């Protein structure tokens, strides 16, 4: 990630009253896919985790690479003094591993690219500011007639569908029993979304859900031989057999509409006929 692209993010965090420590992996001169070698990326995140001054780590962007180093990260100091880890997409690996295995909550939310000087008053960024300052958030969004109405409470888990599917069968596999699951994705083929949802279904992840939040599924592609359903139809088809509350089009996505949520936090989800409310119940 180029240094220029994080400038607005740094400014805004400073405006919020925070001091910013920029890691070595930002603005590096990497010639590859990654922001640095495995060793460089590992050293940078380890440094941020172990530095007592750093109270939150904002991942600059997603992409691919966290899965390569997650098991090499030493979480010993982090476990003693937890701090917020913020990000989404490839960083879903953090959201699966840290709340799942270390029982410490993380924030699934906007990354550096979402911070811009022109659009700094948007509800998504302001909600992140609110969460970081320890205030509870409650999101109210319009409901759709195909939502499944109901109220539930439980721990929130989830993130990017492709990553959640990829972690199936591994020690970071997401446990969903009694929980509220949220999913989002971008740029996938319809058949592939279908295949991944069948993997989650066949690994029992929908059997004992408290509730389901379907976020944005943007830039979904179709094959030359069409799949036969659009993304909404595909999702409805998979979830038609379940009774738990389901909310479609919730603003958690790869787009501007991306409310920060605490993964591992206790939430109440109310899917009404007119309105959906997602409210955090505790924040410690």
């Amino acid at each position, binding site marked *: 990630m180029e240094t220029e692209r994080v400038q607005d993010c740094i400014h805004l965090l400073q405006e919020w009253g925070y001091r910013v420590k920029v890691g070595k992996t930002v603005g590096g001169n990497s010639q*590859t896919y990654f922001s640095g070698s495995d060793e460089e990326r590992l050293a940078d995140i380890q440094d941020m985790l172990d530095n007592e001054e750093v109270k939150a780590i904002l991942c600059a962007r997603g992409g691919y690479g966290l899965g390569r180093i997650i098991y090499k990260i030493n979480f010993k100091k982090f476990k003693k003094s937890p701090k917020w880890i913020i990000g989404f997409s490839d960083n879903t690996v953090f959201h699966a591993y840290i709340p799942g295995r270390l029982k410490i909550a993380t924030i699934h939310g906007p990354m550096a690219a979402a911070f811009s000087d022109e659009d700094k008053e948007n509800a998504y960024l302001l909600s992140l500011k609110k969460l970081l300052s320890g205030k509870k958030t409650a999101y109210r969004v319009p409901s759709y007639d195909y939502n499944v109405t109901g109220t539930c409470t439980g721990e929130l888990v989830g993130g990017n569908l492709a990553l959640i599917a990829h972690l199936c069968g591994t020690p970071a596999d997401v446990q969903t029993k009694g929980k509220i699951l949220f999913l989002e994705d971008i740029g996938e083929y319809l058949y592939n979304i279908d295949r991944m949802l069948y993997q989650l279904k*066949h690994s029992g992840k929908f059997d004992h859900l408290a509730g389901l939040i379907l976020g944005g599924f943007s830039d979904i592609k179709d094959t030359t031989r069409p799949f036969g359903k659009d993304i909404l139809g595909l999702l409805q088809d998979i979830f038609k057999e379940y009774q738990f509350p389901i909310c479609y089009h919730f603003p958690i996505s790869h787009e501007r509409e991306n409310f920060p949520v605490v993964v591992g936090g206790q939430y109440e989800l109310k899917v009404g006929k007119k309105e959906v409310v997602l409210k955090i119940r505790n924040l410690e």
Partner: protein
Amino acid sequence: MPLMDRKNFITRLASVSLIPLGVSGFRGFESGRESGNFVLPPVLQPGDVVGISSPSGYILQKGILSAAHQLQEWGYKLKIGHTIGKRHYTFGGNDEERLKDFQNMLDDPEVKAILCARGGYGLVRIIDRIDFSKFIRNPKWIIGFSDITVLHSHINSKFRIATIHSKMCNSFPDAWDTATEIQKETILSIRDVLAGKKVEYTAGYHPANRKGYAKGVLVGGNLRTIENLAGTDSEIDTEGKILFVEDVGEYLYSIDRMFWNLKRSGKLSRLKGLIVGGFRIKPEEDPDSAFGMTLEEIVMEKVKEFDYPVCFNFPVGHQRDNFALVCGAEYELHVKESGTLLTKV
């Protein structure tokens, strides 16, 4: 003992004896042969019926003509399923239609082998609804690859019954006379395997190979499909096996991620050997996003702490040189300086 009671008694006996078999793996079928505690369905005899069905993608009727012609040349009779020529968007009929056709082939005692017409996508949508109870009692060959890996993994791992990983109807040459040698050889390898012949395949020297010898049951298939089954009831069991994987059209980063899934779900730690088939890699559009590792580096990174043989460029995959392999049969794998040899025991 009155007739009624005797009947009940026999039923009771049957259920008593079936339970432990179900738990410890199926053995001792009337006509199946065993291989490393896997059951090999009976070898095909001239006059036997081969069913053709399309449980994944759709195929036109003319798309199976050359395969049908060849199978008849080999002395088999055909049963063409109603999914052939049927289309529901990308699928060979809707879920109900594909399920019904495949179930019908499985349950028909006349059908001794089921050749899947093509891959595509669709098997995970119906796999949990297929009733394998008759198939388990009377195993028959299931043939195909790519999306058909769902069947290989499910049947090999749950029932310990062997299946055939090979080309399908859409890969049979239109005309035998004008077909290339490799097309003929690969298609004839299906015939040889069905007829129970001992087959042996070779792959040339590859600098990244790890030399060694292994003997064990072969399992595997399409890497993306194997990853997609992780955590499900159809998950592949690789313990003590020789694993082969192939894929097509994936980015290197995605292949890396899939191999991490194999490794972290424990599928690479207790292998006898690893066979890497064809991987036609999708190039990154942006050269600045080069992944920075080769396929060989990606694979060896995941298996460096183990010492089993590994071979690359094996003739299996979405390519011309895709030979028939029996998933669930015992093989000997020799990875030598001069090349690789895979021999069915």
